[in-house]
């Protein structure tokens, strides 16, 4: 969770203080998600809402800083900013300093529902604000997560992208993100990236919901970190054109992938220039 939030805040640094606008939107989408998934009751029942939300946060180690009470209306929630509550303040996120010694006072793993709430919130907020361009920021989040995990020593550094990717997969599988993950490239030259997961809850919850809402964004954290590593070799990821989610929990995802090469050549430009309109 900390790696994800580090990546998120780092990726928005370039817009300065105005990132607050996106984070506020994200916070309200997160609350909406928790209500819609039945994790907390509707804010129309303020006391139950506040109690339930507080219970969830405390259970996940976010106890001391939950301002859920409004002085004006005792018992009513004061529009809690979830992003602020979940953001670790002890790691100087903005400065990029994250000493190993400060590894979590909180639980190392949070409940999946809280993690998916953050994933859904950031995806929807970026989609609402930027549409598909939001993927550029999501990919930056992957880079930030990778930096964080490397710095923390959770993933071993390697100059060999294949070894690094395997370390990332091992990390995410061990952390419970999926029971297993395998990938392969199809085509010669490769044009399709095939991912196979067992029990990857992201796809049955967040991804399914996002797709239904018409978004083309991909916020699977394992994929985002992977994109970052492949990106160092000049690879780009395009549209996800096939997704099969089986009731057994198996997931197959096929995405277009583009090796490092020019995709609109001088020849293409010349052909277009000669086209009669």
């Amino acid at each position, binding site marked *: 969770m900390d790696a994800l939030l580090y990546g998120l805040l780092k990726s928005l640094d*370039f*817009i300065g203080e*105005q*990132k607050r*606008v*996106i984070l506020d939107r994200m916070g309200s989408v997160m609350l909406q998600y928790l209500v819609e998934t039945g994790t907390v009751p509707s804010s129309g029942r303020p006391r139950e809402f506040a109690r339930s939300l507080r219970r969830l946060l405390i259970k996940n180690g976010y106890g001391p800083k939950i301002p859920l009470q409004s002085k004006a209306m005792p018992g009513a929630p004061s529009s809690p900013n979830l992003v602020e509550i979940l953001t670790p303040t002890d790691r100087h996120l903005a400065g990029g300093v994250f000493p190993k010694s400060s590894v979590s006072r909180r639980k190392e793993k949070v409940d999946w529902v809280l993690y998916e709430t953050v994933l859904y919130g950031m995806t929807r907020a970026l989609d609402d*604000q*930027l*549409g*598909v*361009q939001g*993927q*550029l*920021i999501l*990919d*930056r989040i992957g880079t930030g997560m990778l930096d964080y995990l490397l710095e923390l020593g959770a993933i071993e550094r390697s100059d060999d992208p294949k070894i690094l990717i395997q370390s990332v997969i091992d990390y995410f599988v061990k952390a419970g993100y999926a029971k297993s993950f395998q990938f392969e490239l199809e085509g010669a030259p490769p044009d399709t990236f095939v991912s196979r997961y067992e029990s990857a809850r992201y796809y049955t919850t967040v991804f399914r919901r996002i797709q239904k809402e*018409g978004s*083309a964004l991909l916020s699977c954290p394992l994929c985002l970190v992977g994109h970052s590593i492949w990106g160092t070799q*000049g690879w*780009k*990821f*395009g*549209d996800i*054109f096939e997704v099969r989610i089986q009731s057994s929990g198996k997931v197959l995802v096929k995405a*277009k992938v*583009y090796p*490092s*090469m*020019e*995709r*609109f*050549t*001088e020849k*293409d*430009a010349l*052909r*277009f*220039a000669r*086209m009669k*309109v």
Partner: protein
Amino acid sequence: MSVRELIDKQTSRIENPVVLLSVNPVVYQEGIMSAIKYFSERFGMGLYITLNKPCAFLQGAFEKDGLAPGNLVYLDSITNTPERRTESCHYLGRMRELTDLCIALANMISEEKEVKFVFVDSVSTLLIYNDSKSVARFCHSVTEKLRSMGLPAALVLVEMEEGKDVVAQLAQFCDAYVKTGELK
């Protein structure tokens, strides 16, 4: 200064300007709305190339903001649908190749004789799945084609690190580089 004032200040004396419009992510929607209204009022009917948000969403948003539905035709390469044509939109399918975009653009301009400007939203989206050199070359080809036909254009991109090298290249062949301000 509003986006339309910024564009007007830099382009009012140019007959058919090609504008590179760099928009802060926080004011993206407002920036696009303001720019499209400016182009629409100044030049008339436009061709909106949407790579970023589905045409149906844009039509609703523009109409809500007072832009007459007949003022734009769309080339949509983001809606997840097989290639098809409706009265106001040519759906290409999601994230199509740059060469496909070129052909569709040329065909649409040729068919829609009333089109008086072209609006590309956005160059940043192309950078998700294309190398920056190809994106710059594509934009150059498109603007050259439009210039040869006397059509003004706007190339939109969202301000972020990823597009910086492309901005420098695109700015060289655009008449104006308009950078939107911050949230007021």
